[in-house]
């Protein structure tokens, strides 16, 4: 029996559900879009007219059954080719949790789109074809998402129906994933035998695999740690508050307050803070919101800070608590995922956007390419499209940086081509983020 429709007319969770962002990753044709279609269908998140529309579209393409992957593959070209080109965002809710789902493409050439989806995920849902085992492309995506800081993994051993629910096919993936998860230092990794096509162990527990008594996919998603992809690492490391300044607000009667989103840890009225990169000390006089002042601002909240001293602060500066403040530097090592078809080489000049600051940057050196199979750095002098490598960068203005391992906001940046103004790389401050 499918679950009742969302709330059945009763409102779900009121105004205070928590929010889990997850990305579906894995190789092409392992069934990612079908799984999301199944998950939405079985939790009755799809409206009747949407189901009708995908039935008609499936029939027009001569498909015998309703192709649930059409739920997320919404572009004309995707439906023609039966592939996912770009991330589709879908939304679902259970009584106390709202889900933002980024269904990512599996093809190597769309790695930039996969990284887009994974960069804000709390959890990665990995699809593995149980018959084929863990393919190189899946392994690559797991590594990229781990590098991006996604450390909760739910692995679906899919197409178990085609394997006649043979436990050894499942066990093989469990063993492969166990080793990989350990090497990548993931916080959690659950492997679930499923059939996305038929819905086994997706929302409803299946009788087909009596040897499996673990959670369904939905169980795993409901029990995973939600609470803000950007803050979890900061919280775990216990570093202090950071506020990259977005905008200066003039307060009535004279003063100014500095608007931005709180990151790394909360701010409280009276907190001593340092303004970076200038390095000036002051104190939080008040925390302002559009709904009035608040004594304490949690991570993830957009606020503005009113400070006790009159300091020259503008967009791009960072207000930090004194507890383990970021490092100010114009020369640093970083891990980058390169998206451009022209290779990245030492001497290249680009623009860099870090928090709310854009600055010219030069590539001092390319240290090597990160081999996602061996999980080690190999000597190289340039990065080609979709390579992950380590580079040394020098910026025109000093930046207030944390390593990415400590903070996904103050430890990340993008590189921008000066001529085409396209975003050409995702960057993470420090060496590749792996535990071991």
């Amino acid at each position: 029996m499918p679950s009742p429709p969302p709330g059945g007319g009763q409102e779900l969770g009121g105004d205070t559900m928590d929010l889990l962002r997850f990305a579906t990753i894995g190789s092409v044709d392992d069934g990612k879009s079908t799984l999301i279609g199944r998950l939405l269908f079985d939790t009755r998140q799809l409206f009747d007219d949407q189901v009708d529309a995908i039935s008609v579209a499936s029939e027009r393409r001569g498909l015998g059954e309703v192709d649930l992957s059409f739920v997320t593959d919404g572009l004309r070209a995707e439906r023609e080719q039966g592939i996912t080109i770009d991330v589709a965002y879908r939304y679902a809710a259970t009584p106390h949790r709202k889900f933002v789902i980024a269904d990512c493409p599996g093809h190597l050439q769309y790695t930039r789109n996969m990284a887009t989806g994974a960069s804000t995920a709390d959890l990665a849902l990995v699809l593995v074809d149980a018959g084929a085992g863990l393919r190189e492309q899946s392994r690559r995506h797991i590594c990229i998402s781990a590098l991006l800081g996604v450390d909760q993994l739910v692995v679906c051993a899919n197409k178990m129906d085609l394997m006649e629910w043979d436990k050894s096919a499942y066990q093989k993936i469990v063993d492969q994933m166990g080793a990989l998860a350990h090497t990548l230092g993931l916080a959690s990794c659950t492997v679930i035998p499923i059939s996305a096509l038929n819905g086994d162990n997706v929302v409803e527990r299946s009788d087909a695999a009596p040897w499996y008594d673990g959670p369904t996919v939905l169980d795993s998603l409901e029990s995973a740690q939600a609470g803000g992809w950007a803050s979890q690492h900061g919280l775990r490391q216990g570093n202090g508050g950071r506020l990259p300044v977005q905008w200066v607000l003039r307060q009535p009667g004279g003063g100014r307050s500095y608007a931005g989103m709180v990151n790394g840890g909360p701010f409280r009225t009276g907190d001593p803070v340092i303004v970076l990169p200038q390095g000036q000390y002051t104190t939080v006089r008040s925390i302002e919101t559009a709904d009035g002042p608040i004594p304490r601002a949690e991570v993830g909240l957009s606020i503005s800070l009113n400070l006790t001293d009159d300091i020259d602060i503008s967009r791009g500066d960072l207000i930090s608590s004194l507890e383990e403040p970021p490092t100010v530097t114009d020369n640093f090592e970083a891990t980058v995922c390169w998206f451009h078809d022209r290779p990245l080489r030492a001497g290249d000049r680009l623009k860099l956007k870090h928090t709310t600051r854009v600055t010219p940057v030069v590539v001092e050196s390319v240290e090597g390419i990160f081999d996602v199979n061996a999980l080690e750095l190999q000597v190289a002098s340039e990065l080609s499209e979709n390579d992950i490598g380590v580079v040394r960068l020098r910026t025109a203005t000093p930046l207030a940086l944390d390593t990415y391992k400590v903070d996904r906001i103050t430890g990340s940046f993008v590189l921008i081509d000066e001529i085409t103004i396209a975003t050409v790389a995702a960057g993470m401050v420090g060496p590749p983020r792996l535990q071991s």
Partner: protein
Amino acid sequence: MDTAATLASRPVVPAGPSSGRAGQPNASVTALVRPFGRPLGHLDLLESLAIFIIREVAAESERPVLLFSGGKDSAVLLHLAAKAFKPGKIPFPVLHVDTGHNFPEVLDYRDAQVEALGARLIVAKVQDSIDQGRVADPGPVASRNRLQTTTLLDAINQHRFDAAFGGARRDEDKARAKERVLSFRDSFGQWDPKRQRPELWQLYQGSVRPGEHLRAFPLSDFTELDVWQYIRREQIALPSIYFAHERAVLARDGLLLAVSEWVSPAGNEVVENATVRYRTVGDATLTGAVRSEAATIDDIIHEVSASRISERGATRGDDRFSETAMEDRKREGYF
């Protein structure tokens, strides 16, 4: 409900990575539990991210504008823009692309909202595009939905806007579900869904060259239900047509259309007085009403929670032209 306590006590069921056995608790995961404070709810997070996006785009673009239709999503967008810059005023104008096929209640509402916020209103009229020969006149009663694109792009060119905020949500349509928060438009106003900019973390990269512009969608992650819950929490005023009222309607192409100067019964069509409300606000010639007794926001939230038909499916004729009607219009430069 104390969400922090729930988080702490929620069972964690990861497989031990090394044991490879599902269902074993993993001690390392408990370290992820927030050590302090009360986590923010989904509406707090959605609001905060939307404000962040509005401030980023306002800071990085030279001449931003906010697209306002008078519908509930643009009402939420305008409210968020006001919150982002409070106690200051919204530092950009508001643009209404006027099809000329309006619900009078919506125009009254538009003017009242803009005046209350002290914002500057620009109205770009589809009728002017027709009069100037920019688009062919489809006739007085035909839909002007698709003509809006020309009027919108002309207004963007004329005012040299380099960023336009819109209230579109990703749950509305399968093409919108693919679109970035900052969506790049070339000098012809076109969207190329196969070549979207990577959009990592919250590093919204909004640079454009002369003649190009961005569309910015701060409500991307809101669902229809989130919008209603947010309207309730923030007590945002809406046009009266969103609430149940008596209206003369007729059924056409599966839509319940209001009888107006542009819509009158043809052939066997029968006019009836029904109790209806609107789920979306658009061109009056192809925006359908739904039968509803929902007179309050709570009633509407109850109704939306139970609905089996999507918001646009129930009410929008403009999405019915083809399987990829929204993608096709967006490629041309539509909202």
